[in-house]
């Protein structure tokens, strides 16, 4: 390994125009500059979470109790998975309004196959998820071949698949899932053992550090500016301490639910797909400029289809998680505020409604905001009418932040 000496000039610095420094101070000034120019990243959401926590904790001291937080995380997994699909659709500048109905239909199909038809659980799960994927494929075909706006297609789907859900459930309207089935266990009772949760946390921060270090080494070898070891150590330690504290706090109660771990794992996989594969790059390109993407030789239709399929599939998975959580599939599965909560979570988390901007983590952050508000208002014994109004106001606020930061980005030339 021939590490270049400190006197070797990085490629970027051959031009005199590069100013960003890669040590800790450079990181801080660079971040501050980005924030000032309207590239807010996850900042508004984190600030929002903090404000929500302070307000509800002062109104009801149970809000930040380990028991409530454990519950809050479990509750957020199902809609969070649906929001993850919405993120993909929003990234290409489209929307799917039918995720609630699709999740309800998937739950109904699963319950029918598993309870009424007596299929093995795995086949019933695969069947229900396949129904979701098929719906997404149909959306993609209608969108690509007939040019119907996704807004209209999925609005039709919202109504149509709700009807299909009622049809599948039949006259009884509710199918209860046996309590000893794996899905219900997964949704209600399965928690990560304390020792394993600490191991996972250490592995996650360690993995982060190693991947950053390998990347920095490769960059330095190719004479590119690389993150300093100081910066990545600080980042990894902050991550480790934060996660350790969170897990320790949750372990004071029941701990971290496997369902939430599953959701986080999906977020990480999606983040990898969006940022490290050419598919993800093409999704962002289509969201930025369809014409440019087409001229670059990207199969735009295939990208649209893949995104619709992923969104509906994740909606179906979310529907199954929700069914496991309440141990039933009913006529009200996936109805009510599921649709809007999923879309609101993606937008609140920082994925732009205008396409081409966002990340998988916005599903995670956004659903935490939505679920915190919902949980806090329930603790205060407030009616669902108020809950809807508050969630609606937060959604509008989030889109306002999105629009304002977009305007600021345009003014500062950060697109």
């Amino acid at each position, binding site marked *: 390994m021939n590490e270049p000496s400190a006197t070797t000039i990085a*490629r*970027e610095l*051959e*031009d005199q*125009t*590069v100013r*960003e420094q890669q040590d800790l101070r450079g990181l801080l000034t660079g971040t501050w500059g980005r924030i000032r120019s309207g590239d807010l990243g996850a900042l508004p959401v984190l600030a929002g979470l903090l404000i929500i926590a302070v307000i509800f904790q002062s109104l009801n001291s149970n809000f930040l109790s380990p028991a409530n937080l454990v519950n809050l995380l479990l509750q957020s997994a199902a809609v969070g998975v649906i929001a993850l699909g919405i993120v993909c659709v929003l990234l290409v500048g489209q929307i799917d309004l039918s995720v609630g109905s699709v999740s309800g239909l998937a739950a109904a199909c699963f319950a029918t196959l598993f309870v009424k038809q007596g299929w093995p659980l795995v086949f019933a799960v695969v069947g229900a998820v396949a129904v979701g994927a098929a719906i997404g494929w149909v959306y993609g075909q209608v969108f690509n071949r007939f040019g119907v706006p996704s807004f209209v297609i999925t609005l039709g789907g919202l109504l149509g698949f709700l009807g299909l859900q009622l049809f599948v459930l039949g006259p009884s309207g509710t199918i209860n899932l046996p309590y000893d089935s794996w899905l219900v266990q997964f949704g209600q009772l399965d928690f990560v053992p304390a020792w394993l949760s600490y191991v996972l946390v250490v592995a996650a921060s360690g993995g982060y550090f190693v991947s950053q270090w390998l*990347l920095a080494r*490769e*960059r330095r070898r*190719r*004479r*590119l500016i690389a993150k300093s070891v100081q910066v990545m150590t600080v980042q990894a330690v902050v991550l480790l301490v934060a996660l350790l504290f969170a897990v320790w706090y949750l372990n004071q109660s029941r701990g971290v639910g496997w369902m939430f771990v599953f959701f986080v794992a999906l977020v990480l996989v999606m983040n*990898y797909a969006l940022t*490290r*594969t*050419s598919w993800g*790059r*093409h999704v*962002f*390109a289509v*969201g*930025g*400029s369809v*014409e*440019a*993407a087409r*001229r*670059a*030789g*990207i199969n735009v239709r295939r990208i649209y289809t893949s995104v619709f399929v992923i969104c509906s599939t994740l909606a179906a998975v979310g529907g199954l998680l929700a069914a496991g959580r309440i141990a039933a599939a009913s006529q009200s599965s996936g109805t009510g505020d599921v649709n809007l909560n999923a879309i609101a979570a993606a937008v609140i988390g920082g994925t732009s409604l205008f396409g*081409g*901007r966002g990340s998988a983590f916005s599903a995670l952050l956004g659903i935490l905001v939505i679920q915190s508000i919902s949980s806090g208002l329930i603790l205060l014994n407030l009616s669902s009418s108020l809950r809807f109004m508050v969630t609606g106001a937060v959604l509008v606020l989030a889109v306002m932040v999105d629009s304002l930061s977009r305007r600021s*980005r*345009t003014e*500062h*030339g*950060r*697109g």
Partner: protein
Amino acid sequence: MQNQNEGTQMSSRPVIQLRGVSKSFGAVAALTDVDLEVSAGEVLALVGDNGAGKSTLVKTLAGVHAPDSGSIEFLGEEVTIPGPNAALNLGIATVFQDLALCDNLDVVSNLFLGSEIRGSRLNEVEMEVRSWELLRQLSAKIPSVRIPIASLSGGQRQTVAIARSLLRDPKLIILDEPTAALGVEQTAEVLNLVERLRENGLAVIMISHNMSDVRAVADRVSVLRLGRNNGTFTVADVSQEDIVAAITGATDNAASRRVAAVSTKAASATTPPAGTSSTTDEQE
């Protein structure tokens, strides 16, 4: 670069040669019997008034439209260009006027969009290194390859678009109005870039409305008028009035009178405009 070697060895014969190319859209004849040739290491300016057929001709070469008749020879072999990908595979790269860049992606992502370097995942380091090499080769000034396209100036965007077209090692590069909507300094940057393309041994076709740009970088000027050739000039021995006269197709009209008046005023031109435009109708 390999372009240079190939460029010097084949400078004798044209990279592309069009003979009698015609194209009509319904009853409208957009191109009639057009001939055109460009050699390696040569910049050909393609000029003409609005509706003269410049865009149609470029789209024919880029594989957007197929010609109705006529032949296209590329590197001495007769070829057909059925689609955009066929043009790219032959080695014809086109930079359209709207550039087709994604504003939300950074420079590296835009350069490699649709042809990413990847193993099991995107090889960002390799792409970044090659981006720097490519931009250095064009002596292009880009502040960072990791900033979104939206934060670049018009000239820098044009540079990125041209650099992207070079990724597939083309032999012929077509620039559609590369200096339109650019400021003085940015225009100079792009013209420098065009000269660098020529030095690298590429054949360049540049569409332009700006006569001073044409005279600054082009070796030859080919004039289209109403879908026909209306004269090809060597820039070194032709005056601006001659080109304008060929574009407008008339000796006595507002544009050529104005050019004549300006040059008379400058007390340098003694030739009356009528004498300079002998090329105008000789093609007929």
